[in-house]
């Protein structure tokens, strides 16, 4: 059929020649068809490589180097893993990892419960029908890394020790994201009710997110000042003018966390609100007709249906939360001592003295932690949620 068409179009070309040409070009054109997709996305890939991957690799090299100043310029001297060893076992390890205290009943109980849970989950997976070698290996690695982080948290927070910037960051992320999610869910459920003024409050609840983080930090700096500021009459009334939030390690961390929760709850709120508003009414109506209570409707219908949105927004906030820097920097400059210093602020503090290698090493440690937690979250939680729904 193809040969007949060709001979009609070009009468003076022999059928044999056309057949030959077609057979020669067919693989090329087929290959071009196959490559077309790749060719079209190549510019985007090149842009990403240039602006994302290259800086990543360059900063990896920087983290293995030390900046030196010479006549008229700067140089990078390769120092191997010196910058990392400073953080993990060297002069800066207490600052980064914290100081472990003697085990307490609480820290031991916490660790025992966490480790037992991890062993149980691993055992259940190993005995389950979907077990694969790769899956099991991945889970064992995740369990070991998570176990190490939990050990660090338990022995620096639940003992007489003190947390380093790594654990402080984990506390910020864990507490902030949990509290933000709970408040945002409550507000979203409230706003979808047909209450008077709900449109007004929908806008008001979004306002904190619109303010620059540095502005929020200055706002909370004024609010936490017990010797002056807008809340001064309140502190006087309660006799708290001699108390300072920000000179106590946990008071200062709490101030930072309240500021972060205040600013970022609206982000989760808006996503959950959109998810709840798009739920099919038929399901809820059917449940109500069947006699389901409000709690049952929430637990059996609303919550499972917003789980995909939940898992996505929590992942975004997890990744964003690790980068917290504005609030502790402006509110307390990382103090008292190093109590409120996050990993990003740690990197920034080192960078200010132009120790760019040391700063890049902290940034890479942050990247490793964020990647580990992000990937674990996606593998263990998000995929399951997606499959479930």
């Amino acid at each position, binding site marked *: 059929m193809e040969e007949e068409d060709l001979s009609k179009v070009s009468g003076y070309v022999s059928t044999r020649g056309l057949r030959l040409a077609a057979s020669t070009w067919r693989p090329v054109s087929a290959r071009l068809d196959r490559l077309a997709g790749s060719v079209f996305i190549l510019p985007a890939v090149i842009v990403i490589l240039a602006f994302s991957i290259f800086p990543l690799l360059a900063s990896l090299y920087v983290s293995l180097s*030390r900046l030196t*100043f010479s006549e008229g310029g700067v140089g990078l001297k390769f120092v191997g893993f010196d910058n990392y060893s400073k953080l993990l076992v060297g002069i800066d390890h207490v600052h980064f990892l914290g100081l472990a205290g003697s085990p307490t009943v609480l820290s031991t109980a916490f660790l025992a419960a966490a480790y037992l849970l991890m062993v149980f989950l691993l055992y259940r997976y190993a005995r389950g029908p979907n077990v694969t070698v790769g899956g099991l290996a991945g889970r064992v690695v995740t369990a070991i890394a998570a176990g190490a982080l939990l050990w660090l948290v338990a022995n620096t927070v639940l003992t007489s020790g003190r947390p380093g910037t790594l654990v402080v960051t984990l506390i910020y992320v864990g507490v902030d994201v949990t509290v933000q999610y709970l408040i945002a869910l409550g507000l979203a459920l409230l706003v979808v009710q047909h209450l008077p003024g709900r449109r007004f409050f929908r806008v008001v609840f979004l306002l904190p997110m619109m303010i620059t983080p540095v502005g929020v930090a200055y706002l909370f700096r004024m609010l936490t000042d017990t*010797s002056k500021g807008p809340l001064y009459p309140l502190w006087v009334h309660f006799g708290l003018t001699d108390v*300072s939030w920000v000179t106590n390690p946990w008071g200062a961390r709490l101030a930072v966390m309240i500021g972060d929760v205040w600013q970022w709850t609206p982000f989760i709120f808006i996503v959950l609100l959109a998810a709840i508003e798009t739920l099919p009414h038929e399901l809820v109506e059917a449940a109500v007709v069947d006699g389901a209570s409000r709690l049952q409707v929430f637990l059996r219908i609303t919550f499972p249906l917003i789980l995909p949105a939940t898992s996505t927004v929590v992942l975004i906030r997890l990744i964003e939360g690790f980068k917290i820097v504005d609030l502790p920097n402006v509110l*307390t*400059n990382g103090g*008292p001592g190093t109590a409120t210093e996050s990993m990003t602020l740690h990197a920034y503090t080192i*960078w200010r*003295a*132009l120790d760019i290698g040391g700063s890049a090493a902290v940034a890479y440690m942050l990247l490793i932690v964020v990647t580990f937690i992000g990937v674990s979250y996606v593998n263990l939680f998000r995929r399951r949620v997606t499959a479930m729904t």
Partner: protein
Amino acid sequence: MSRYLARALILTLAGAVLAACSNGTTTSSNQNFSGVTVHVVTFTGPQIAEPLQRRAPDFERLTGAKIQVITVPFSDLYQKVLTDMATKTNSYDAFVFDPQWLGDYVPGGYLEDLSDRVKNDSALQWNDIAPFFRDFSATFKGHVYTIPLDGDFQMVYYRTDLLQKDGLQPPATWDDYISIAQHFQGKDLNGDSKPDFGSCMAMKRSAQSYWMYISIAAAYLQSQGTKQGSFFDTSNMQPIFNNPGAAAALNVYKTLSKLGPPDQLNNDVGDSRGLFVTGRCALSLDWGDIGPLAVDKTQSTVQDKVGAVILPGSKRVLDRSTMQLADCNSTLCPYATNGVNHSPYAAFGGWSGAINRASAAKTKDAAYAFLSYMSQPAQSSVDVTIGKTGFNPYRTTHFTNLKPWLDSGMSEKAAKDYLGAIQASLQSPNMVLDLRIPQTAYYQQTSLDTSLAQFLAGELNVNQTMSQITSQWNQKTDEVGRQSQLDAYKASLSVTK
């Protein structure tokens, strides 16, 4: 007779012409720089940036040069300037910065050598600038790189009315300072029926706290004169921050952290100055800024109630041969007053202006003319009397000419008291020079500052703090090169006064 008259007339005319020529060539602010824009970077302020911004339009009217003042947070200024020059971005033509950083900026060849310009600029009146600021703030290895715009010494301020009422003398030692602070802590000091504070001091992290600590520590660590140094042993570059003298200073520092406002650990100098001039503190440790701020009617409630004295000292100092504290005697404390060793600390060294060597020739001329204009007595004599400028006296005329001080609202007694405290520091043979070696920003702003913040917060005890500072400093010294750092440190102490 007429011949003599004619000769005298000719000589007079010649003298007048010479004088006119001389003025014409050396008054840098009379040059024409139309079309030239000078980008000057300094810290956010409002101090320091304020006088530069305020006087920029006047300078433009005089010379045609447009001055654009760019501000960045103080904690970013060091790396911002260095990165800009090292990467050859050169977006700034002039810098108003901490002269302690010359140790990093000059060896890189980034700054213009101003030696000849200064020599040929009669309007600047170079010799009117106090020798310490000419030699320390402006000069590095024999060459002039900056024009001083500010004179920095830390001293102690006290409320004259309160001390007089209770029959107390201004503090001579740090023990005196503590006892006065304890005496007033919790009492109402400004008549508003609220409890106030014995002492207000900047103790916030990443702010000015480490200068405050050195002001205390120097009294224990340096007693043999300026060249002894307060930071390192000049024979082996070992830090002298791990000994009974440094421990005594840490204990004073910790005690004072509890004799102030409840959030003192989160206060910088802006906070402590605000508290002092509103009458909430009996004592404060600060640079010269409180003097002019105390007479500023817009914010001060303690006008003519503020006295200033040289930094308190100690009767026991570190004997470097035994590394133990020992009582002062004529050998150990040759410069002691009434048995008290005072070590006035030239903290920071005073904001100074420098020029980017890579800028265009005409821009560099305009930048120099602007810095010279800012420093000339006509401008600086007024600026140093205004609290919000952040500029403190640094010229001989600033100390001898009381008129601008009286015009600013200071009483003659207060002016003499304030200037006397600075002069006593400036003339002390045991003056403490601030650190000025490569990577000074790491030694002080990162290591010392963080360790002190951890100490105040209770994260480290006295021994752990001293040990951490020592090991971090040693590690940095070894990284940069112990011998080269030692050479730089010794060179920085060989200042002729």
